[in-house]
């Protein structure tokens, strides 16, 4: 479904992504772990098209999308949520979700009809709002919403775009225990055919939802395995998990 082949990205003499390769099958959930500065977000930016790789190849649904724009990849079913909220702050929660749904449904260019008034768009927006716990907040202006609500909306926008592959960059970043638990339930409830690649620092969350885990260190993929194999890996324990045994 999504494949990275020997992906490299350098900024001057600094190599941030160094020969990363992996392959996500349809419906697979994979977590990307690694210490700060390991190149996780850069990898996401390469996969989503926000950055062009220095070398290597990205394939989406079998097609080489390495030179495709962000919007072209999005139209092929690749969506992402951001580590820092990237919302339509001047609009309401419902309008945020509806814009995403209308764009995905191809209603964004309608000249004679209101895309946000469309029954289909409203249905998607309401369904996603219920899914991410924002059902009662559709009319709330985003600018007046608390941080936790905005994090939920960040994920909601990505889901409303009806993706085939979802890249989630630290969805639980800055969230309290209640929201992390809700996010956990949400991720478990998503359709099994949705492919997910997630960066997450919350280990319980990452290990529970992921089928496989890739560990990055200094831009290199140094380990790949199941959550159980990751727990047992001395290499991973050394570079990232440190006191995982005591944590577990």
């Amino acid at each position, binding site marked *: 479904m999504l494949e990275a082949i020997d992906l490299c990205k350098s900024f001057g003499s600094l190599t941030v992504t160094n020969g990363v390769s992996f392959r996500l099958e349809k419906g697979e959930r994979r977590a990307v772990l690694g210490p700060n500065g390991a190149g996780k977000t850069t990898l996401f930016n390469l996969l*989503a098209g926000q950055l062009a790789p220095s070398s290597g190849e990205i394939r989406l649904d079998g097609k080489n999308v390495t030179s495709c*724009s*962000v*919007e*072209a990849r*999005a*139209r092929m079913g690749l*969506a*992402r949520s951001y580590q820092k909220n*990237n*919302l*339509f*702050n*001047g*609009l*309401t929660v419902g*309008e945020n979700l*509806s*814009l*995403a749904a*209308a*764009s*995905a449904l191809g*209603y*964004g*260019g*309608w*000249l*004679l*009809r*209101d*895309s*946000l008034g469309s029954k289909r768009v409203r249905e998607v927006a309401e369904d996603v709002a219920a899914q991410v716990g924002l059902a009662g907040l559709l009319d709330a202006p985003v600018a007046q919403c608390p941080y936790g609500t905005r994090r939920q909306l960040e994920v909601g*926008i990505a889901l409303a*775009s009806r993706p085939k592959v979802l890249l989630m960059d630290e969805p639980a970043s800055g969230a309290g225990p209640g929201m992390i638990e809700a996010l956990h339930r949400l991720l478990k409830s998503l359709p099994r055919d949705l492919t997910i690649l997630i960066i997450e620092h919350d280990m319980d969350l990452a290990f529970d939802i992921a089928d496989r885990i890739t560990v990055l260190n200094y831009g290199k993929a140094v380990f790949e395995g199941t959550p159980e194999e990751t727990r047992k890996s001395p290499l991973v324990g050394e570079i990232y998990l440190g006191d995982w045994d005591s944590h577990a």
Partner: protein
Amino acid sequence: MFRQTPLKTLTFAAILAGLAAYTLTGGTFAKELVIDIAVLAILAISLDLIAGYGGMISLGHGAVSGAGAYAFAAATVLLGASPVAGLLGAILLAAAFGAAIGAVTARTRGIYFIMATMAFGQMAYVLVFDSKVLGGDDGLPGLPRLDLSGAGIDLQSPASFALFCLALLALTYVLAAALLRSGFGRTLCGIRENEDRMRALGVTVWRFKAAAFGFSGVFAGLSGALAAQHTMFVSPELLTWTVSGEVLVVVILGGLGTLTGPVAGAVFLVFLKHVSSGLTSYWHLIIGLSLILAVVSGGRGIYGGLEKYIESRLAHRSKSPVRPREGAVAAEVQADA
């Protein structure tokens, strides 16, 4: 996100009715003022479409309108086309020019975008200024007006022409509101709010920006063709960046991104010019002070400020506890007794 609220509709209808009444009851000068207001308001709506709802502050809009004026002049005077064909040509050329500006400048932002649009405007100005075919700095005189005599309307009459311009202003407003309520308009607002996120949702942003400029050019071209018919003369002055600046002032004075505000701004600016220029030769200072006042008082402009005030009053009223009328209380006391 655009909403055609009752306040917007009522305010626009009141302005239109007031201008129509002023046309019918006032003298020749009143009719000239109304024509100026209608032509400026159409251009201001055109600019509000891209600046207020698309976040693209253009300083090349005078040139787009001027291109429409020159297209009308060239078609009717040089090519001998009918005024109707000239009007259609003006609208098409301005739309194409607008779309071209939008397509080229769409990838720039902020001050670079403003400078790029201004450069387009100045290039158009120089092109026209140096063109012998288009009359150079002398311009082109002897332009005809549309012939609506078949419908019993004589557009040579100032009153009829003023009412005709008001009718086209109303049409412009309705079409712009419809566009802003459409899927296209919603996407445009999304781009204004967060261009990068719209791109991540699969929207090819530059195409929407170019198309928005094109639609805006339709109205700017209409405004230019009406200006040309009004004076029956075109000159390169129509394309200068100061025209674009004046329209931007109108939009800001009235209320950026409110659709009705730019119409109110056009009324305000034209009347202010008329009144203040009769009082002092330093009337530009009064307009400058008005703009500063509009910007420092929240930047909402005349209509935007009114809208905000009414919204806050309504919100305050809905939060206030309901006080029963005295009579009702007395009746309840009596019933209890």
